[in-house]
């Protein structure tokens, strides 16, 4: 009986709370005393919630279906009641000069795709799609975090792939509000030179790169869990037979004797393997689909399909001969690009079959 009573009271409280919250929300919509309204909501939650207080965009299962719909739509709308994207005048754009660094992008790994060169050689590419990439904020060199050794470079925070406001922590939403941009699932900080400033809110497309350029791609490697020393570090283990007692896949020796008398730090041992960000350098871009924003990059990229990949310019690009779109590609500038951009050496499917020419015999 006691249990039943407890449940009844909690249900009553939640229903009371919900009705009160509806009143408060209505006043919030109308714009009256927003701050007080929000505080009241929090205090009410604290009083009546028997479970953990969630500081999230609100979505309660105890609501009726009509109210659920309302709450869902209200949450989507709420994030549009921010400052206008025209609050600042457009920032001036500067030109590329030797030594400039551009921002990178965040892509989603779609899968792999076979291609052929003009000489008939087959190779495999990874397809990376740029989904809803926007610049979130620009950090001037004074305020940029000190990961970069020089301390002179500015930073640009890029966000990718729109997120649902219902499942986003409220504390993280303010920077997207300031940029006047939908909430993003992932953000990455790229270090840039001061001349490659981009106004927050600017969309970034696959045409930021061009076929023939080289990029570095960073993806989160597939997690293998807790792994032994043979798989994780490639050690040889011990023989299967010839008297080995319970020792076939072990590390074996751990180090020296009395001096140093301890195991060095960083000794290769069993542990978690995979699920780490890893860079793959100098991958050539062979093809760009401007309609779906897909970049085809030669070779493999870490991570599973659907995973995020950070892309940035590689150091071995010869931009002196052919400067890239700087600071990024703006579609309104210049003519519209064709749907598919191919590298010179790539065999396009609509071209004729490859035939080798007869070599002329050398005259002796």
């Amino acid at each position, binding site marked *: 009986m006691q249990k039943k009573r407890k449940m009844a009271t909690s249900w009553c409280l939640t229903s009371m709370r919900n009705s009160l919250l509806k009143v408060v929300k209505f006043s919030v919509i109308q714009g009256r005393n927003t701050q007080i309204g929000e505080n009241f909501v929090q205090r009410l939650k604290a009083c009546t919630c028997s479970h953990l207080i969630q500081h999230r965009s609100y979505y309660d299962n105890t609501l009726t279906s009509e109210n659920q719909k309302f709450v869902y739509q209200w949450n989507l709308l709420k994030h549009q009641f921010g400052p206008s994207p025209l609050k600042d005048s457009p920032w001036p754009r500067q030109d590329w000069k030797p030594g400039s660094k551009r921002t990178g992008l965040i892509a989603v790994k779609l899968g792999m795709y076979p291609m052929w060169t003009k000489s008939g050689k087959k190779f495999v590419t990874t397809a990376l799609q740029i989904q809803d990439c926007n610049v979130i904020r620009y950090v001037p060199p004074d305020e940029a975090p000190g990961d970069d050794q020089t301390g002179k470079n500015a930073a640009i925070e890029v966000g990718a792939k729109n997120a649902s406001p219902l499942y986003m922590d409220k504390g993280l939403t303010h920077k997207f509000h300031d940029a006047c941009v939908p909430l993003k699932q992932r953000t990455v900080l790229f270090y840039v030179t001061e001349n490659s400033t981009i106004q927050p809110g600017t969309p970034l497309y696959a045409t930021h790169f061009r076929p023939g350029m080289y990029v570095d791609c960073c993806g989160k490697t597939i997690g293998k869990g807790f792994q032994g020393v043979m798989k994780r570090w490639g050690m040889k283990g011990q023989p299967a037979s010839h008297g080995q007692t319970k020792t076939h896949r072990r590390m074996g020796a751990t180090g020296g004797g009395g001096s140093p008398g301890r195991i060095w730090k960083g000794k290769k041992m069993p542990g978690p393997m995979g699920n780490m960000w890893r860079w793959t350098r100098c991958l050539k871009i062979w093809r760009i689909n401007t309609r*779906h924003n897909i970049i085809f990059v030669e070779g493999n990229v870490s991570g599973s399909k659907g995973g995020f990949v950070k892309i940035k310019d590689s150091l071995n690009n010869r931009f002196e001969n052919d400067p890239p779109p700087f600071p990024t590609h703006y579609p309104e500038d210049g003519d519209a690009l064709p749907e598919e951009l191919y590298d010179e050496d790539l065999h396009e499917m609509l071209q004729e*079959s490859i035939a080798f020419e007869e070599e002329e015999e050398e005259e002796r």
Partner: protein
Amino acid sequence: MKNYDHDNLCPGGNVRHFASQDSSGKDEPPTNSKSPSDNEVDAIPERLSPDNKAATLPAPKISLDLLRRRQAQKKDQEQVEKFITPEIYPPMGRRSKILDYLERQDCFKRRMVMDIPEFYVGSILAVTMADPHANGKTSRLVGICIERKNYGLGASFKLRNVIDGQGLEVLYELYSPLLHKLEVLKLEKRTDAHLLYLRDALPEYSTIDPDMIAIKHPPGRPVPVNDIVVKMKPRPWHRRWERYELKGLDVSGVSQSRMATVQDHILPEYKKMDLLMMYPRYDITEKERMRIEREWEVHQNELERTAKKGS
């Protein structure tokens, strides 16, 4: 979605074709007539039902010749199932639909440049490919297709032939730009999804004349199924073919003790029809399948249009 539709492979027929004969069009495919005993027990025949007004009229007399002529006409008018190439159906697994679509579009683009004809496992093909080390910079191979694999641009097939007593198998990529020509010398199907057992069969079944003349397949006719049963070389074989449930090879020479273990490796009938086991493989929905087939139709129409323009 399996790449090989077993229902299409064996439409049911006792048609035998030999290499020397031109069999297409001469042998009659089996009729679909049912014997009276196949009908449902409790169904009332239409002529006896009270609604049938013609039941009282006598049946018209038709001569045997006229009947045969009408049957032949019907066969000609019968619409043969349109061929849809198997490599445009994506395999199971978590795949990007956009990427699959782009791959299919690239396949269709390549088909506008080079004609890739309809062929099956068991058909005899002649492949002309660019070769930097050959005379005239092209090499031609005639062989029987023993396998077809993979999706989209990576689609491949294997050709087998025995040349100067040496068995030879070559893997070709359908959409490679090095392929110049694909001729189907003989269009036919077999009773199995692959013919890898020809490696352990007597060489006569893999030997194809390199100067073989093409046997034209009249359009509109169903593709003939060759239900030849191949005789094997003495053991050891590359694989235990008796365990594979293949219809095209003669397993009579295998010892009793080996045949006794075969049942352990074959799924029982009830497991084959188990929906829960099949479910994860059927990743592609009916809607998607319709969309893919529509893309194929559009591509075929474009091909016809460009062919007409050219001629």
